[in-house]
């Protein structure tokens, strides 16, 4: 049977969608496969658990892994309480109006500030103005600026997503607003809040520009927050850009992607578990 004009248009449009979707997936897989193929040969227990040594940074990347995890954890500690409290306020307490719209617009704008600018600001403010050292603390503070809007918006959406009739169940038995929010709404929103937190962590651990300005580059094993260090993305950058040790750069990239992939997987698992009971 001869195809009508509409059917042909439909087929053409459909094939464009397929190509677009295919390109997206292909790009992702190309990157993953490339990094895995070139990185996996380098990765070994020695690579993960020992220090780099020599002019060509042979050996392992252990301190950079620790520095990355350290700074990410610290920035989460700083950003999470502020962002979650702000989100609870915006979603539950604030009178919806101009002020709230301005706060939301500010958060969205903050989220779209280029990270190199955030790094410059972090350097100018935390290090030059406040006099903090190049350290885990300075980097964590600057990173938390980056994470604040991400956590705040996902938390706010999660809280708004809790059905009205669940809140009414609590109010309907004589709970106050705070009791309802703290004992019913936030626990009900928790899986989605955690998902947001984990995605923010993934963003922080891969962040390069901000830590480049604020953490220093020395290969230290950070112990206290004012210690400096070298995060994995910086290590990767320095190894690659100066051509010092390309295989180790790919090994680092592999480890970094592995960590982020693990975070994302965790986020999916948690949100999936949530959907099961929803």
């Amino acid at each position: 049977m001869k195809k009508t004009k509409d059917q042909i248009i439909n087929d053409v449009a459909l094939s464009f969608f397929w190509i677009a979707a295919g390109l997206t997936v292909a790009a992702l897989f190309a990157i993953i496969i490339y990094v895995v193929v070139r990185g996996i040969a380098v990765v070994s227990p020695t690579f993960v658990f020992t220090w780099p040594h020599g002019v060509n940074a042979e050996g392992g990347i252990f301190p950079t892994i620790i520095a990355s995890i350290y700074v990410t954890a610290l920035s989460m500690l700083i950003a999470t309480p502020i962002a979650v409290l702000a989100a609870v306020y915006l979603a539950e307490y604030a009178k919806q109006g101009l002020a709230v719209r301005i706060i939301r617009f500010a958060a969205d704008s903050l989220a779209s500030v280029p990270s190199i600018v955030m790094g410059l600001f972090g350097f100018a403010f935390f290090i030059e103005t406040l006099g903090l050292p190049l350290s885990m603390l300075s980097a964590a503070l600057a990173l938390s600026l980056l994470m604040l809007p991400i956590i705040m918006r996902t938390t706010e959406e999660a809280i708004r997503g809790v059905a009205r009739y669940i809140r009414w169940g609590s109010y309907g038995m004589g709970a106050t607003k705070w009791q309802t929010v703290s004992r019913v709404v936030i626990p009900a929103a928790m899986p989605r809040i955690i998902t947001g937190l984990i995605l923010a962590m993934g963003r922080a651990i891969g962040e390069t520009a901000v830590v480049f300005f604020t953490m220093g580059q020395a290969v230290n094993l950070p112990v206290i927050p004012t210690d400096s260090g070298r995060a994995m993305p910086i290590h990767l950058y320095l190894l690659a850009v100066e051509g010092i040790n390309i295989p180790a750069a790919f090994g680092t990239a592999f480890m970094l992607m592995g960590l982020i992939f693990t975070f994302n997987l965790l986020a999916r698992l948690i949100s999936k578990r949530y959907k099961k009971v929803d």
Partner: protein
Amino acid sequence: MEKNQKVGPSSYSEPLVDNPALVTFFIRHLNFWYGDFNALTDVSLDVRKHAITAFIGPSGCGKSTFLRCLNRMNDLIAGTKVEGTVLFDQADIYGQGVDPVDLRRRVGMIFQQPNPFPQSIYDNVAYGPRLQGIKNKAELDAIVEKSLDKANLWKEVKDILNKNGLALSGGQQQRLCIARVLAVQPEVILMDEPCSAIDPTSVQKIEDLMHEIQDQVTIIIVTHNMQQAARVSDYTSFFLQEVAGEPAILVESGPTSDIFTNPIDQRTEDYITGRFG
């Protein structure tokens, strides 16, 4: 309890029931607005203590709205306004200094959609007592068991108290919500179409438990189902919005047997006999 007293059309200013101690809710000339829309007008009614009162009427007749006036649940909806008198246990619930939170503890509510919290069965029932500061495990255990038992759910869940309340069937969830409300020992339970979204077995169990707890709790039930109103209630009130966009009224109230067999108002008779709605 005297059941032969007739409560006629709304426009009373004198008490409809002689003895105020028998009246849980004394409502006079209640008007209600959603924004500019006058949803209910001039509702007057006495709700008998320790009786089951049913509110019936077609969809959109304001019966659920009226129900929510009784525990100030409508306060949670922006732009609503109430006028008139609502006395609960002879005290004005819209008076100055009345805390709606305290009112809602005494006047609990069950909703059409079962709404357990996404927590364990135990934590759902212990929620209210914990709000009141009860921390003792043995005491909480006892309240949880007693409340679930009253709600005809204990036998089904006694071995799975740590399971998420949302894992139960719809009918079980609704009984869990009833147990959760019973755990705070309210004086009144408002039920807003509690059986319209659940299975027949659970409906039966809920109707049974309503009769079982009637001597401790005053129950007001909004229902679409006239057979249910006839089965479970002692008193019935018929609400009607005659013209779309106009406020609804309370057409007639009285003992359920009278409303269903011998209504005063022609509109009530038309509704009962299925001529509309």
